[in-house]
């Protein structure tokens, strides 16, 4: 057995490691908080079938929502200075196979040309929020746009990489259902998390994707549709993800950590009690 000094040295060395470890613990800077409005949409995991067909389903009631401001599209011509839809509430769910995203926004009248769209970055290259318009110093990627219009009653799965390149995809993978009631549109978009189509955004559980929103008030004013094409309410990029399944193996490691720390204490205290104090 070691003499008092020797075991004390060992203890001290352990102590030092402890201090270093502890200091690295504190070194984890606190993460940025999500306090200024929403910055992301979380698609919560639920069991069984999704409320994809019914924007009014009570299943949506318990899903927390995010809210995003919208701006009149003044980024490129044709601009518009005043739009109807000022902000949107967004909810999302998935069941490991399919996803559903509900957008809810105020629009005082139901019109044939009312429309809503979700836009996603596709692949690894960042795409500019305005239809993946060309960037000068960065090679950009394409965007995938899910476009719903009241008069057609369905969604169109579209792609763009730059202005005037927007087109409907050969493979249509998106569904949508809209309901207008008392001055509020609720539109649910749904799709499988993943598709076979390289033009589509692929949703992996736990991974963040970029999403942007656009809405058109199709009201007819003086014989003309108020908002159409580039004249719409828009947002820039925000984050979205399908929430991952909880990983329970973490708790095994936590218990191991607890046990090791307790054992360490036990050894030290016993050594000290055996009269090896100085």
């Amino acid at each position, binding site marked *: 057995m070691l003499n008092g000094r020797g075991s004390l040295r060992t203890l001290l060395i352990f102590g030092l490691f402890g201090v270093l470890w502890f200091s690295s613990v504190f070194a984890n800077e606190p993460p940025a908080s999500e306090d200024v409005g929403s910055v992301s949409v979380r698609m919560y995991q639920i069991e069984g079938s999704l409320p994809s067909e019914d924007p009014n389903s009570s299943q949506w009631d318990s899903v927390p929502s995010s809210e995003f401001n919208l701006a009149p599209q003044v980024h490129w011509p044709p601009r518009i200075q005043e739009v109807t839809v000022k902000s949107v509430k967004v909810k999302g769910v998935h069941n490991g196979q399919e996803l559903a995203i509900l957008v809810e926004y105020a629009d005082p009248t139901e019109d044939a040309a009312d429309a809503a769209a979700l836009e996603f970055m596709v692949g690894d290259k960042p795409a500019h929020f305005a239809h993946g318009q060309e960037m000068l110093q960065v090679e950009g990627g394409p965007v995938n746009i899910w476009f719903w219009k009241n008069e057609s009653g369905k969604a169109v799965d579209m792609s763009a990489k730059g202005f005037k390149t927007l087109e409907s995809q050969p493979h249509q993978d998106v569904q949508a259902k809209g309901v207008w009631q008392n001055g509020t549109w609720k539109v649910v978009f749904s799709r499988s998390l993943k598709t076979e189509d390289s033009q589509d955004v692929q949703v992996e559980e736990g991974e963040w994707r970029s999403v942007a929103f656009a809405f058109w008030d199709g009201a007819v004013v003086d014989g003309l549709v108020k908002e159409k094409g580039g004249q719409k309410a828009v947002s820039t990029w925000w984050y979205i*993800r399908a929430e991952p399944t909880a990983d329970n193996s973490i708790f095994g490691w936590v218990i191991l*950590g607890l046990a090791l720390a307790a054992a360490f204490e036990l050894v030290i205290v016993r050594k000290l009690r055996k009269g090896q104090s*100085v």
Partner: protein
Amino acid sequence: MKGPIFSGAIILAGMFIFLKFLLPLVTAPLPASLIYLYLALVLSGIMIYGTMSAPSLEAMMGPIFRFLSGKGQTGAGQIARLAVLVMFPLLVGWQTYSRLVPSDLPPAENRTIHPAPPGEFVGLSNPYPKTPENIMMGKGLYAAYCSPCHGANYDGKGPAAPGFNPPPANFSDPGTIAQLQEAYLFWRIKKGGVGLPVEGMPWKSAMPRWEEELPEEFIWKIIMGEYDGAHQSPRTWEEEEE
């Protein structure tokens, strides 16, 4: 407590106050990780010093070991010892958890707000004289093209501003155009958000690429109107060389 433990604690606390509060008065604040690394080094120094000889070792570690062994302890001492013994494993458990639990937050945005301009824009100066007419014209163009985002009061609070992330620049804030040269603004206005290098995250910027719509003359005059309206003045080349 007194003796080496006490003075060690004082040294540590003093060091922390110095690194965390005094140093930032003269330089940029240190990241927390660096502060704690320095503190850990100071602490190991104290411990090495304290354990150099048998008497100093006893003076430093004796009280700690007696406390941990629990010999002859009563009342508050006993409770404190128990608390330490219980807290330590819990702390380890909590740390294990918070290290392993997958990050729940969206990626952090480390956008560089003023990245370096491309070479061809360095050294340009405004070819138009700062006459009241030119400034007036610039302000008029600003009102027409820029105010929906940057605001009629040059404060970044235009009617379209709330929808954009990052928000339109606030020109009356001394942190924006007052830090910049006219040539820099000329670049930013001409090429817009899409002209930013990768560290400026061009894919997020709603700042239009105005070269597609406005002649260079308009852009130079808008710059004049912008500084005048925001009550700021541009950095000059002389200031840059200081």
